[in-house]
Each structure stands twice: as structure tokens, then as C-alpha cells.
């Protein structure tokens, strides 16, 4: 229901950045360069990327703490940032949740939340504060100091403070990075619910793909100061625009191969191929194949066939005459429900294959046959693409 706004025709977008360039120091390369992003009202967009890629800078540009030297920043259709116009942070009507939470240590929880509520009588302010505290499930701490709270509670106070004023959007900088992992799963869902319930647009910055997938409506994968790909989690996962994006959204390995007739032939065998990002390949083109552990299976090469296998051998995985079948298990990671095997090829390339635990019996160094799970395709990129 809330996402209805996303596809509304002609919408100007709650937050819009166009060809934004910014830098900290004239002698240094720009942190953001040609950064484009459009976030619709009521939508949660996640900026995903490794550290140093400019995620936090992008957030600070939107919040108004950094000036742009090129491009435009619009909030609710109004120009707030350009080389010539800079609306200061306090006039941008945005709520910010800092990585460090930045709760005011000299104020109580309620005072923190009430801090940004303006243009209201004291009674209205109190009512609004209570409502928000309730919504965030922290009303019992209202009159306590912020030091007495646990990390997760501080996190929710910070969020409550950011959504309490009538703001255009909420910006969250690495909101879960300082928290205990066991708390994070639950908090991710809560934060998403609170933001949607409050009817806020939100941009969330994270380096953690799980957070990005679980918290956001759309994911924007960043690469060296710009957005490399944006879309729903499923879209981005299904067709990563580049090897870089693929690596950002999941553990991935690449091996060399040759494209021929909709298939890719590699040292590890032959797989159905999918050309991502609109690439067109001719037969015989050198390609780079994305080997995703969860879409591959392996079995011992010399055994006669899978007695307990839950996978169905495909005709094209049968080793032909030219296949030397020398993929070998290099090491393994035991996860309980499954085991990740690291498979080494003669050329030295390695990739991972995820199997159910029964395959534990295969010893290290054993030759194996690798196949794709049913229906899966190996995504291929032009050789040398990054």
C-alpha cells in the first residue's frame, strides 16, 4: 500500500540527486562523482557498498552537511543543493540517525525525542512524543537518561528522535553496525515497520547486504562515488549489472570460460549461461562466469551415480571426452545445515559450492564434478569486466 507511491506516474520523487559531485579537499579526487538517485515517497532505499565508497558522504550531502560542487539535490521537488544554492541542514526537514546515535547526553529520552518537534504547543509536543515513544516501544524509558539504555534501545531512541518532527525523510547511517548480531535481525524488522508506520521516506546506508535486503524496498549498490545499480533486492540479485555489484550483494567467485550457444564452457564443466546487463555474446567469446555457491552442487567424480542425491544429474554435466575433470576440493567450511566447499581448478581459479552436509564424506583433494541446480543459470560477463 505504501509502495503505491513508487510507481505513481509523474511523481517528482521525495529525494532526488542528479549528477552530484562533491569533494572534501580541492586536491583530492571527488568522493561522489556523477551520483544519481531518486527515492519515491514512503519508500525505503538502501545505499549498499563497502566502506570508502561514498555512502555516508551521499547521506551528508542530502542532509546538507556537505556542499555539492556539481549537480543538483532536490527534496520534495525543491532544489536544496547545487553549486550555487545550499539550504542549510536545519531547513531541510530531514531526520538523521547517526551511526553513533548522537543522543544528547544532557537530556532525558523524552527530551531527546521532543527536541526537534516545533510549531506546536507544549501539550501537542508531549502528545506527539508519547505517541512516537509508544510506536518505537521505548515509552517505559521516557524519563530516564540515555546512558542507562542498551545499544538497541539507544538505536530506537535515535530513530524516534529522527521521525518525531514532521520531516520529509529519515536518513540512517549504518544503523545496526554497533549492535549485537542477535539483536539485529529483530531490530531490522522493527525499524522497517516503524518507518512505514510513520509514513516516512527513508534512506539507509549500510555495508551489510543482509540489512540492505531485509530493510529496504529498493537497494542502490554503490561503486566509487556513484550508484552502480538500483532495483528491488530480487532484481539486483537476479541480474547484477557487473561483477562488482555481484560481489557486493553476495559472496561470489568468477572463473574464466568460453561462450558457445547459450552455454558457458569452463574448466569446471559446462553450464547454461545468462548474459546480464543486456550484454550480447557471440560463440567463442571469452567470458567471466559468476559461480554462486548456493546454485551449484558437486559430487565425487568417479562414483557411479547419486544414490542419496537430492539433485537430478543433467545430461550436459556428464563429463565428455575432452573433460579432464580435475576440479578438486581444496577446503571446506562446515555451517551445520550445509557445507561450503572450496573447489580449485587446474588454472588456480577457485570457487565455492554449497552442498547439504551428507557430502562431508568427500575428502579434501578428491576430484569432483560440479553442476548447476535445476533451473539455475550461470551469469556471464565479458572477460575482464569488473
Amino acid at each position: 500500500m505504501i509502495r503505491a507511491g513508487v510507481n505513481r506516474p509523474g511523481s517528482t520523487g521525495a529525494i532526488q540527486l542528479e549528477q552530484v559531485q562533491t569533494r572534501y579537499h580541492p586536491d583530492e579526487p571527488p568522493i561522489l562523482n556523477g551520483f544519481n538517485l531518486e527515492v519515491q515517497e514512503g519508500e525505503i532505499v538502501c545505499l549498499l557498498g563497502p566502506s570508502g565508497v561514498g555512502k555516508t558522504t551521499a547521506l551528508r550531502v542530502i542532509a546538507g552537511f556537505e556542499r555539492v560542487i556539481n549537480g543538483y539535490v532536490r527534496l520534495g521537488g525543491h532544489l536544496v543543493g547545487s553549486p550555487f544554492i545550499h539550504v542549510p541542514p536545519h531547513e531541510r526537514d530531514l531526520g538523521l540517525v547517526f551511526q553513533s546515535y548522537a543522543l544528547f547526553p544532557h537530556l532525558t529520552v523524552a527530551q531527546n525525542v521532543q527536541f526537534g518537534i516545533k510549531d506546536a504547543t507544549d501539550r501537542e509536543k508531549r502528545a506527539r512524543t508519547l505517541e512516537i515513544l509508544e510506536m518505537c516501544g521505548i515509552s517505559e524509558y521516557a524519563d530516564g537518561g540515555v546512558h542507562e539504555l542498551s545499544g538497541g534501545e539507544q538505536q530506537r531512541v535515535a530513530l524516534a528522535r529522527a521521525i518525531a518532527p514532521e520531516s520529509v525523510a529519515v536518513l540512517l547511517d549504518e544503523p545496526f553496525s554497533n549492535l549485537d548480531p542477535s539483536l539485529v535481525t529483530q531490530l531490522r524488522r522493527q525499524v522497517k515497520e516503524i518507518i512505514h508506520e510513520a509514513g516516512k521516506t527513508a534512506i539507509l546506508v549500510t555495508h551489510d547486504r543482509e540489512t540492505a535486503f531485509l530493510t529496504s524496498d529498493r537497494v542502490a549498490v554503490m561503486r566509487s562515488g556513484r550508484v552502480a545499480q538500483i532495483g528491488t533486492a530480487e532484481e539486483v540479485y537476479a541480474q547484477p549489472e557487473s561483477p562488482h555489484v555481484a560481489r557486493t550483494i553476495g559472496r561470489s567467485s568468477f572463473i574464466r570460460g568460453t561462450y558457445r550457444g547459450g552455454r558457458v564452457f569452463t574448466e569446471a564443466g559446462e553450464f547454461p549461461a545468462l548474459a546480464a546487463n543486456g550484454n550480447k555474446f557471440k560463440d567463442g567469446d571469452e567470458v567471466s562466469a559468476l559461480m554462486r555457491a548456493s546454485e551449484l552442487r558437486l559430487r565425487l567424480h568417479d562414483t557411479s551415480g547419486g544414490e542419496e542425491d537430492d539433485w537430478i544429474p543433467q545430461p550436459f554435466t556428464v563429463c565428455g571426452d575432452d573433460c579432464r575433470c580435475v576440479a578438486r576440493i581444496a577446503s571446506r567450511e562446515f555451517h551445520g545445515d550445509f557445507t561450503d566447499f572450496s573447489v580449485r581448478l587446474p588454472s588456480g581459479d577457485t570457487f565455492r559450492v554449497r552442498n547439504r552436509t551428507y557430502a562431508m564424506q568427500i575428502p579434501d583433494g578428491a576430484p569432483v564434478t560440479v553442476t548447476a541446480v535445476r533451473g539455475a543459470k550461470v551469469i556471464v560477463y565479458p572477460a575482464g569486466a569488473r
Partner: protein
Amino acid sequence: MRRGAGGAPVSVSIAAVIVVTAALIPVLYLFVRGIEGGETTWDFLTRSNSVKVVWRTFSVIALVTLVSLIVAVPSAWLTMRSDLPFRRVIAVALALPLVVPSFVLATTMIEALGPKGTLQEFLEPIGVERLPSIYGLPGATLVLVLMTYPYVYLTVRGAIAGLNPELVEAGRNMGFTMLGAFRRITLPLLLPAIGAGATLAALYTLSDYGGVALMRHNTLTVSIMTNFQTSIDRTAGAALSILLVLFAMLLLLIEAIIRGRRRYDDASANVGRSHRRVHLGIWTVPALAFVMLPIITGLLMPVAVLLEWFIRGMSRGLEGTPILVPLLNSLEASGLAAVATVALALPVAIVTVRHNGWFSDILEKAVFIGFGLPGVVVALSLVFFAINFARFAYQSMLLLVFAYAVLFLPVALGSLRSGLLQINPNLEEAAQSLGFTQFRSFTRVTLPILMPSVFASAALVFLLTMKELPATLILGPTGFDTLATSIWSASSEAFFTKTAASSLILVAAAGIPTAWLVLREHAASR
């Protein structure tokens, strides 16, 4: 990940530049005077006598700084991190020599330890006719060490309080002995604070007059003061003052080189964990003796001599110098100085903390030169400035308070800076994102959190102003006697018994904020 560098609004930067420029008026005056003097200036600077004076100044600075460190660093550690008995009282007492004016300390020290002083009287029965003279380098060093080690002591204490105890535990875990852990981990982490304290000590030594003059060690400042007091032509004094400014710059340069590009703000902040104190065991007695030595010579002995004078004066029915009016004047001047100095230091502190780079470096260094200038140089240049450009302010409280601000800006700055560094800059940004202007964010969020530091720096300025002498003498409104000036004028006439009561009150009045400063830190570190 980098945070934005442009932390301070333009208006604050402008205010900071104005403050620093104003603080540099005295230096400017000196160069104008020196250039006016032309050949005379040059002759004076190149005399062989000047070389001797520079050498004497250098030797006393080096010696005082070194001994101050030897006294202060272990004292700070012992009172903060060991199970030394009575450490609360000792912690306060160790800081208190700060409140004894150097001329009072030197006078009482001569009375007690002079060739024919009290100590000699005690030793007379065992045949000691005359003690070796304490005048010259040894006496000057003794007095100045007692005057300056509290600067190092207080800064190092502050740094120890902010130290993460886990770091030391990690070191001990890696197999270092207690001493090894101190040397390899604690000491390097304290190095910036030690450097800052040592710089303050060196600059104070450079600027002190009363102590070295009474101990007859002719440093640059004594030469300057002598020239200003005796000579009608002030060119020579200005020439020597230029030498002094160069000296101060050299000291700051040395500190900058030693410190390198390291900054104070590494603060892997003390996470509020309580520290386990180191058990001293058989070392308790030597440690007690070590910390008692400066307390006895720097605090108890002068107070005892003052009390003796007081009783002697009472028994002879001699009238002391008046107390009430000078006390009120002292409180008024010190209070105004504290408020004004902190207000002026605040923008400079913000700019130097929130900006990195040459701009803030220059501002910071420029302010520190003022601390190395003797009060007399600052005062006389302000006389010149006021007569020619601000006649309305001449001999008014306004100019006097401004002089105090120039003299003590660096001190106020130090405490404000360390306070600001501990405040997460995100706090102010959070307030801005909640619709408050940069200025309002500062007043609503940063300032309330900064308040303890503001009070601390005001207290420091207050107590330094209480005992300030030359600037008060030269710039004070006519007839404006403070405790320090009335003590000085009576003691320079050798009416020591008359000064006893005033001196004791001065020590008490300045002692209160000092005790508060130390106790506050003590509480914070527990």
C-alpha cells in the same frame, strides 16, 4: 571514514580570527618599537651580554621543564592509579603550589632556605654557620619547578582520566611488567599531554619575573623588566622582548616537531569502567615521600613562613595591609577576566577543534605566544596601544581585563579544546537536522555538555588572574589595588609581616577553584 572538515560556521571563524589578531597586538607593538629603534635595537641584540642572557634563560627553561616532568608525571600517576594513602588530599595539595604567587614563594623560600635562613638556624647547633647560597640557577630552578610542575601535573591527570584502562590491561596481558606496561603503553599515550604540559611549563618559565628576579637569576624576562623599570628609553626593552618572542616561537616549534602530526583526539574514550588501582606495597613509603616533597616545599613551607610572619606581626601589633578592598578588587578583576577570557577563547577553541589544517594550526600557535610573553610586555604594549588608539580604555578595567585575556587565552583554550574534543560532532549535526540553526545547535546541545570544561577553564583563568602582578600594576585603574599588588608593594619594601595576612587570603581564595578543579577530575575518574 572521513567526516566533514568544515565544522565551524564562518561567523565563528571570523570571531576567532579577530580574537587572535587582538591577542597579537603586543607582538605587533614590539616589532614596531624594534624597527623604530633601528640601530639601537640591533646593537642590543648582538651584544655579548645578550648571548649570556639567552644562555641563562635557556638553561633554566631546560632544567625547570625536565625537573617538572620528573616531579609531575609520577605524581599524577600515583594519585590517579595507585592505592597511595590519602590520595584525595594529596591530589589537591599537589596542585596547590599553583596558587602561590612566585614572588611570595621566592621570598618565603629565601627566608627559609637562604644562607642565614630558618633552616640554618635549626642547623646552627650542629655547627652549620652558613648554608650554600640558593641564589642563581639552583634557587631559580627550585622556585620555578614548584610553580610549573602543577601545569604538567594537571594536564597529565586529565589525560590519565581519559585513558582506556583496557589498553594497559592488554599490555600486561601481553607479558609486560607493570613498569614495562607503563613505559610501553601508558607513557606513549600520555605523550601529547606531557608535551602540552611541558610547553606550558617552559613558557611560564620564560615569562616569570618575581621568582627568578628574587633568586637573582637574570633571565630574558628579568632583563626586560629591569630595562622597563629603570631605563627611560624603552627600545632596549623592546629589543629584548623581540628576542623573547622568538624564544617562545622556538619552544612552540620544538613542541610541534616532537608532537608531529599526532593529535589529542585519539581518545578511545574511557568507557566508564572503573580502574583497578595498582597496589604499591613496600613502595608506599617512598611514593609518599616523593609526592610530599613538592607539597612541603611548594605549599606547606611558604604557608608556614607566612603564618610565622603573621604571628610575628600580630605580636608586635603591626597593622597589616588592608584586606577587604583589595580582596573585592581581586575577585572582581578575576571574575571579569574569567568570563571574558573564556568567551574569547570559545570561538578559537571551536575553530581549532573543528578545522584541521594550517588555518587552525596558525591560530593555535599564535595564541600560545601570548602565554610566553611576560605580563610587563603585554601591559606596556597595551598602554601604547590604548594611548594612541583607544584613549577611552586607558587605565580602565576594560583594558586590564583584555590584558588578562591575552595572557591567559592559551590556558582557557587548552581546557575548552579538550572538552570539545570529547563531544561527538554528530550531536550538533543531529540538532541541525532537527531544524536548529548551527548557532542554536551549539547553544542548545554543545554548550550545555561543554559546561564543565567552561567552568574548569574559567576557574584556571580566575586563579591565574588572582596572582597576576605586572599587568595589574601597569594597566589597573588608578588606585585599583588587588591582593597581589598590595602584597607586592609591601613586600618590595620588605614589610613582610604586613603582607602575611593578605598572602594567606590570596592563597586561600585562589586555592578554592584549584581544589574544585582537581576534585572534579578525581570524581570523574572514579
